[in-house]
């Protein structure tokens, strides 16, 4: 169970190795990457910022919750901050378990909770040079 806010590129392969275990036959992984468009606008890059101390704490709490809900799950999560280009990974989560349903459910729990609870924000920089903070709670027309 390791949760980290990082500034370097995320190495998904090393996360997979980190949760690998001869007793766990199922590993589920989620990777979130920067998309080239959002709500119809062309995105050039995204700047992620975090309340770092709290973000790592909250991520650890979420992993611990998933570990209790899906007993035996081995979990790791990294969220990258700083300026990310299109296609780069902002988040990666790996979940290993003896049963595939538990690995998949634990993975979904962690990503859903991270999206709603971890104090990390993103500012999209558009092709025209303008930028704006993304607010997922705001209803949009698209």
């Amino acid at each position, binding site marked *: 169970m390791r949760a980290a806010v990082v500034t370097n590129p995320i190495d998904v392969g090393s996360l997979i190795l980190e949760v690998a275990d001869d007793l766990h036959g199922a590993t589920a992984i989620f990777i979130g990457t920067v998309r080239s468009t959002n709500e119809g606008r062309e995105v050039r890059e995204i700047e992620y910022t975090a309340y770092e101390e709290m973000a790592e704490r909250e991520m650890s709490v979420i992993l611990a919750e998933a570990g209790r809900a899906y007993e035996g799950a081995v979990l790791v999560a990294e969220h990258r901050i700083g300026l990310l280009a299109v296609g780069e990974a902002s988040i990666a989560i790996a979940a290993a378990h003896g049963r595939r349903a538990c690995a998949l459910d634990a993975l979904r729990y962690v990503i859903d909770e*991270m*999206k*709603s609870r971890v*104090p*990390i924000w*993103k500012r999209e920089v558009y092709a025209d040079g303008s930028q704006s903070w*993304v607010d997922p709670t705001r209803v949009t027309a698209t």
Partner: protein
Amino acid sequence: MVGEMLITVRFFASYADSLGLARTQLALDSGARVSDVLASVAQLPGATAIPKIPRVAVNHVFADIDTILQTGDEVAFIPPVAGG
């Protein structure tokens, strides 16, 4: 200063941009609550960007506005998160 305590207040993302401020300190009477911090912050220029009841954390843990503060506590205003 008997009865006074020092609270660190932090702002992030759109809140920090609107206030032009990422971190400040407030001196409050002992026994003060998160709601007293909200009242002080509401006086700052640019505070209209912050909702009346924002999401708040005390010492890195989400807290409600009735939470009683201790000197040295860190109160953070958390805009809608957008990680992932």
